[in-house]
């Protein structure tokens, strides 16, 4: 079956612009996570959805970052007024349910470069 897909695979933008990154989770997965991975680092937690609601958004770095999941499936991560420091790979993962022992299935990521 289809895994987690993310679009676009690459995004180049200019400082100050607005970007949207999309995640299509595995069908039927209720939990969805967003992470950010900088070069040479492990993924850094941003936000977690259970269904349509953000269960934990404590990892969002500031109010320029926002994510939605209006129908409990596809999610969009939105970044306003992008900065060069936002350049990273943005990873999305989904799991069947919530919980520390659930298997998270990751997408291939969106590589964001802010010039």
């Amino acid at each position, binding site marked *: 079956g289809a895994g987690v897909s993310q679009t676009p695979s690459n995004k180049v933008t200019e400082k100050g612009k607005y970007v949207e990154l999309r995640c299509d989770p595995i069908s039927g997965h209720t939990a969805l996570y967003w*992470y950010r991975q900088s070069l040479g680092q*492990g993924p850094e937690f941003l936000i977690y959805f259970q269904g349509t609601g953000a269960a*934990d958004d404590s990892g969002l770095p500031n109010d320029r970052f926002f994510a939605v999941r209006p129908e409990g499936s596809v999610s969009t991560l939105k970044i306003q007024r992008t900065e060069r420091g936002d350049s990273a790979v943005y990873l999305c993962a989904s799991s069947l349910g919530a919980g520390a022992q659930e298997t998270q299935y990751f997408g291939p990521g969106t590589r964001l470069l802010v010039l």
Partner: protein
Amino acid sequence: TQLLEQSPQFLSIQEGENLTVYCNSSSVFSSLQWYRQEPGEGPVLLVTVVTGGEVKKLKRLTFQFGDARKDSSLHITAAQPGDTGLYLCAGVYYGQNFVFGPGTRLSVLP
């Protein structure tokens, strides 16, 4: 902020050698996971350990969770070039979400 440390940061070995990589924290995990990530892809879950002292084996990979649940190790026997990748540990602290370590980048040379 909880921090996970992984060592070594980089490891380059010859095919057939054995190796061990480590994951450490000053805090107690409720559970810990190991992932492998290849370039251009997302991490793939290898194992989840939950009980202190737990040992799990996955073919040539052996995972151990420390008795105090603050550390873990991954041992690979007779490494193969296909084992090359970034090995990440991710800990769950009570009531919090996953925290990933920086990873160990393994290169197995033929």
